[in-house]
């Protein structure tokens, strides 16, 4: 499977260095290594979800209980989480660090991923969620650290879009 183990490790190490101690996730191809790393790490609580919106509640609970968390999801999982983001995270000023695999961009071969790809950034903008991309391994650690810092300071959701060039090795 040509999902980059090396770049998944970079992302995982950056989360750890931000003191993230709980990760919620729903499996998708690009996230398999990240989820395995969380599962193999005795210092990390991995919560496997049935649907991504649960992760908003779990991260909100973790935040109020004093634990930093991150959410691993596909962009369709972000679409499935929007009510929770608005009526829990935004309404109650809860920080969320959302790592979203950005399917449906240039290079996408799966026809079923394409519609969600076109909706992802317009929806992030319309919800007022600050976001940045992760494409180049050299900026992964700094951008994750900055995203986490802004989420905690603003008590708001922030998103990082995991791009094809970072996650997939052709």
């Amino acid at each position, binding site marked *: 499977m040509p999902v980059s183990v090396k770049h998944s490790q970079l992302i995982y190490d950056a989360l750890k260095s931000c003191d993230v101690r*709980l990760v919620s996730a729903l499996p998708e191809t690009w996230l398999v290594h990240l989820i395995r790393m969380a599962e193999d790490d005795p210092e990390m*609580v991995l*919560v*496997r*979800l*049935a*649907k991504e*919106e*649960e*992760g*908003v*509640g*779990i*991260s*909100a*609970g*973790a*935040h*109020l*209980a*004093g*634990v930093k*968390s991150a959410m691993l999801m596909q962009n369709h999982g972000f679409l499935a989480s929007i*009510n*929770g983001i608005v*009526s*829990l995270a935004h*309404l*109650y*000023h809860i920080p969320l660090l959302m790592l979203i695999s950005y399917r449906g961009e240039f290079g996408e071969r799966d026809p079923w991923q394409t519609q969600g790809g076109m909706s992802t950034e317009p929806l992030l903008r319309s919800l007022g969620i600050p976001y940045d991309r992760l494409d180049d391994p050299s900026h992964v650690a700094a951008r994750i650290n900055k995203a986490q810092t802004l989420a905690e300071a603003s008590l708001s959701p922030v998103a990082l879009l995991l791009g094809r060039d970072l996650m997939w090795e052709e």
Partner: protein
Amino acid sequence: MLRIEALQAIYPQLEECVVVTIMGAVSAELQSLGHRPNFFYLLHAMGLASSMGLGIALSRPELPVVVFDGDGSILMNLGSLTTMARYRPKNLLHVVFDNESLLSVGGFPPATATGSDIAGMAAAAGIPHTVTVHTLEAFTDAFSTARTAGELTTIVAKVEAKGPPLFLTDLPMLENRFQFQRHLRDMRAN
């Protein structure tokens, strides 16, 4: 059984618990019995109270966590039963008040009014202990037992479709949110 009678009966036991409630009647009735800083009322995001309770329980295994859920709310997030069951935190008690009515929006019948069995679904999802109770005495017994059982429990309490006249209280959402967070932090210090 009236929901407020059920809440009143176990209210003294909530002092040492972290409590998360759903919106509407459950939130208003618990507040009418006396707000405490360890109570968080999720006034929107229908369905996510159980997920929040799970997040707290997994983050702070030393704290007993109680979620007061409702039939309409858990039906919107049935997957949460499977996620709770997967991790089955010993410090989480999940109470579902089932009045077979979407009371706050005019009393429309949810699926529990036509036979769907939440305790049955919770058991099938893998929640280790599940029970449905119809009387105040049975509820009080089930709650006290679950508090000391040390195992994830879902109690479905069948209650009458009656609620308070008003759902608004004088506690602003954000005051509740920050007070609750600060209180949980202080519970760590103790």
